[in-house]
């Protein structure tokens, strides 16, 4: 464990190891997303209530999963950066935050598109939608805070603290929004058929979720690699690498 953490301190080691891992994650993402999309969009049976519009689930649910996991990853990498001063963790956090915000936006947008045929409206102050919207604001806050500092080290540490504060608050926000929603509106509209889903609908969803996660890991690895090159541009191994490439 300690040996592994010590190795993580070296951007060069991470650069080398991620080059070997990257093709596997890209391949997994490609195969899983293509399989899941074709299965889910073409072959899975239509929902007896929502018809074909339920197929938005195959984008909506994986995006929503990622939106939440990426924020937790931000807090974890923030903690790792603050405790062990591992720069890789902060580089990963830098590149993950916009991806998380994008996933939150995709989840919200696909939810709105889904809302039109099912609820007859683009937006509902539904508990799930509201907490997703707040999550988007939290992401934007982290990104804005990181951008506001001129010193990179301060920016990294400030963003780490905010991500950790946010992650403590996410469950509190989630439960209070649920409470607020049940107080204000009777739960007339629940997204039907999410819990009790037949196997033919559920399996492609699982594949899509795994595919999205692989995509997220691959993209994060790739963008962390370019972040390493950018931040370590003055180091000798990076200059040698650049000379080789020429």
């Amino acid at each position, binding site marked *: 464990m300690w040996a592994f953490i010590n190795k993580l301190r070296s951007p060069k080691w991470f650069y080398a190891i991620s080059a070997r891992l990257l093709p596997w994650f890209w391949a997994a993402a490609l195969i899983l997303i293509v399989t899941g999309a074709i299965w889910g969009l073409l072959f899975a049976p239509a929902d007896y209530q929502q018809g074909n519009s339920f197929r938005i689930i195959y984008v909506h649910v994986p995006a929503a999963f990622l939106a939440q996991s990426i924020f937790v990853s931000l807090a974890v990498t923030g903690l790792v950066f603050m405790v062990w001063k591992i720069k890789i963790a902060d580089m990963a956090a830098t590149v993950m935050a916009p991806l998380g915000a994008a996933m939150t936006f995709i989840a919200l947008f696909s939810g709105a598109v889904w809302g039109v045929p099912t609820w007859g409206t683009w937006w509902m102050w539904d508990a799930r939608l509201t907490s997703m919207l707040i999550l988007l604001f939290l992401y934007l806050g982290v990104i804005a805070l990181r951008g506001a500092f001129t010193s990179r080290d301060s920016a990294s540490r400030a963003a780490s603290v905010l991500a950790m*504060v946010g992650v403590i608050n996410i469950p509190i926000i989630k439960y209070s929004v649920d409470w607020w929603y049940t107080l204000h509106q009777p739960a007339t509209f629940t997204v039907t058929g999410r819990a009790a889903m037949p196997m033919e609908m559920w399996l492609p969803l699982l594949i899509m979720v795994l595919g999205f996660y692989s995509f997220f890991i691959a993209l994060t690895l790739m963008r962390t690699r370019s972040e390493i090159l950018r931040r370590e541009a003055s180091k000798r191994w990076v200059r040698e690498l650049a000379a080789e490439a020429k």
Partner: protein
Amino acid sequence: MPATDGALTKEVRVACEEPRGGLAVAVWATLKRDLMLLLRRRSEVLNPLVFFAIVITLFPIGISPDPALLAAIAPGLLWVAALLAALLSLDSLFRADYDDGSLEQLLLTPQPLALLALAKVAVHWLLTGLPLALMAPVLGLMLALPAGSYLVLAASLALGSASLSLIGAIGAALTVGLSRGGVLLSLLVLPLYIPVLIFGAGAVQATIFGDGVLAHLAILGALLALALIFAPLAIAASLRISING
């Protein structure tokens, strides 16, 4: 020779130990200093209150002067306006101390920074949150807030604004080193304010509808307890980032 040596070490020892012993002294001194500073700059204490009153005046003008309509939305309006007033006052929480360098001195004291920051936040609540809570019933009267909910309004605001001060201080500490941190501060802090707003405004609404008020107040208390534990640590860490950066 040995006698002077002994005297010297004793002096040195006293010099080292003196500031370390007095945690209560340091907290009390910080409390007293901040209270005195704020009381001498009265406008800083009064501005949030005036802001609160003006915002509440805007709503009847912008929506409708109809008492029935206003009464229905009054709990939420009062809470949102008080929350914004508390938010606006946050930017000055560490600003003056940062500019004149006394924040650095605070960081250098041997006492735990978290507790000293807690003292500063306590003063902020005492001179912002508490006055807002006391003023809210008067503005509630103007919004035709149903009778019987005034006490709960003041109590929920007093309890909730303590959490608001604590959570907001994290944002204030993170942005104090930035020259234009004001809008950023709101962006960081407002999403974190939502639980407090839900249960605070919920408490007032529960009184109006005759539901259980104590549950809301209890949860506000629980949020405050959580914030009291975690926020000072985050504030201290954020202040260190802002000073060293």
